[in-house]
């Protein structure tokens, strides 16, 4: 009797766990379903090539916002990649040192800072002193968010490089710097690049840190010292507006954003799967 009860309970819990998985997939399916169906009906070539139209005029696109998003993300990467990669190299080369554990701690901390708080921080250091919202400030905000991701990715991947490669380089008389930059980093490079691209695609979907750094711009601008329109902030503006036309544009923007993120996630998944296979092969 008791054994039956125990088996029954076990089966119920197993079923509940499977149910939890299905339950979590429902919102995922719903979000993707709405983004695709609502987005696709409003997506057209014009969305990528035309400027936003004023309220009441149908059509128009978000060309300025797409260029703006690329630019702000690019500026962020420009600043985040050197800092992230170099500190990642430090953390893996001097893994046992006190500075390495401190920088690891700092990166994890930074990773946990709410994005809106990073926006406030960058407002204080890059907007307030110049009394001007700028694309550059938006880039700094996104850069700050990318750094911990890039640093930890670099560190983890460098530690995966087989020690025999390093020993070979050192045996040939290379200094540590030379071994790192000509042998170890190149060996891990495909993984590092994948990680960076993944981080970029994720950070490109950020809105909160841009609200009061790069702000928004109704015009086409590529000037880093001026406010700039971005896809995410534009979606936000449109979503909370009362106009049906703008809502459609917001859905189209969401579809573009989700496609980018999805594409990069899939790419990264294949890349990591391949690397894991290579790793096992060795």
């Amino acid at each position, binding site marked *: 009797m008791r054994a039956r009860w125990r088996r029954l309970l076990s089966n119920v819990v197993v079923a509940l766990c499977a149910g939890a998985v299905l339950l979590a997939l429902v919102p995922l399916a719903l979000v993707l379903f709405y983004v695709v169906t609502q987005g696709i009906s409003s997506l057209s070539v014009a969305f990528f090539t035309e400027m936003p139209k004023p309220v009441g005029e149908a059509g128009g696109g978000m060309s300025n916002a797409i260029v703006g998003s690329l630019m702000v993300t690019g500026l962020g990467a420009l600043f985040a990649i050197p800092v992230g990669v*170099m500190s990642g190299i430090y953390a893996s080369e001097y893994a046992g040192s006190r500075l390495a554990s401190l920088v690891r701690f700092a990166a994890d901390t*930074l990773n946990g800072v709410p994005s809106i708080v990073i926006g406030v921080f960058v407002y204080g250091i890059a907007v307030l002193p110049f009394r001007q919202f700028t694309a550059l400030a938006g880039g700094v905000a996104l850069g700050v968010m990318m750094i911990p991701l890039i640093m930890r990715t670099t560190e983890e991947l460098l530690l995966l490089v087989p020690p025999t490669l390093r020993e070979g380089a050192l045996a040939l008389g290379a200094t540590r710097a030379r071994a790192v930059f000509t042998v170890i980093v190149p060996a891990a490079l495909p993984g590092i690049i994948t990680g960076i691209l993944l981080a970029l695609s994720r950070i490109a979907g950020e809105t909160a840190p841009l609200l009061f750094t790069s702000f928004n711009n109704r015009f086409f601008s590529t000037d880093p010292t001026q406010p700039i329109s971005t896809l*995410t902030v534009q*979606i936000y503006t449109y979503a909370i507006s009362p106009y049906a036309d703008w809502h459609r544009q917001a859905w189209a923007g969401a579809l573009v954003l989700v496609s980018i993120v999805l594409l990069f996630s899939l790419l990264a998944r294949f890349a990591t799967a391949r*690397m894991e296979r290579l790793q096992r092969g060795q």
Partner: protein
Amino acid sequence: MPTRPPAASRDELLFRAGTGAFALLLIGIVAAIGVELFKESRLSIREFGWHFWLTDIWDPVAGEFGARPFIWGTLYSSILALMISTPIALGIAIYISELAPQWQRRPLVFLTELLAAIPSIVYGLWGIFVLAPFVRSLQLATPEWMRDIPLFSGPPLGVGMLSAALILSIMVIPFSSSVTREVLKAVPQAQREAAYALGATRWEAIRMAMFYARTGIVGAVMLGFGRALGETMAVTMVIGNSPQIAWSLYAPQYTMSAVLANEFTEATSDLYLHALVEIGLVLFVITLIVNVVSRSFIWSMGGQGSSRFRWLRQAAGARA
């Protein structure tokens, strides 16, 4: 120790200093965030002191700044989200790491982590146009006698605490479930085998593993809590943005991050701006504490490093 030629040691020194400088820069940024937030909120701190966090009136026009409703909204929405998401996240983690057949694992991990990949703004958009109307119909369908209970009172707006908590829980699930999965992976296989050898059922063996991993699981849930506290866009779009303290799930309320998103560019006076930055400062400190505590729990389990590509995948979830 063999002595190195001087050229090599100079080279080494240069390398260490060069890369170390960037590491210091990273540490400097984190420190700078704290310093800057403190500096830009000093007017408000000096003017209101502790009073700021104990007052309910937020009326920038009249120069009254009381931040209690925001603290309330942030904590209430995050705790509700945790109550909804924790059982689901644990179920997912258990299913994937203990129960699922091998061929299901990778796809399921990918799908649940996709939940973390969808940008916050997209959740917000979906929240406004799909979730909030659904919650509104739920409110309309609430039977009369239930509406007398404070938890369900209020007009049917759709936007409000329940919508915010639901969307937060969806966003938090991938974090707590993936960390729980890592932690369960760190439980020695012998634990489970011993349980089975003593005649345990599947659930009893899992419970044993969960007991072994309890600190790490608490850490995983706390990590999700930290995410929920700081989440901005999706919450801002569905919580209704009304600074009031209410138990009602249907009442529009406000959070710390939402008030920053909405009012920061409209801050007309220095005092107003400093009051907002002070909210940011406290949000920073709270999430910092939650994160550090949760990470120390997870580390104590040795979950760290058990999966080598964790960071590549997590470059993923990354951000709220």
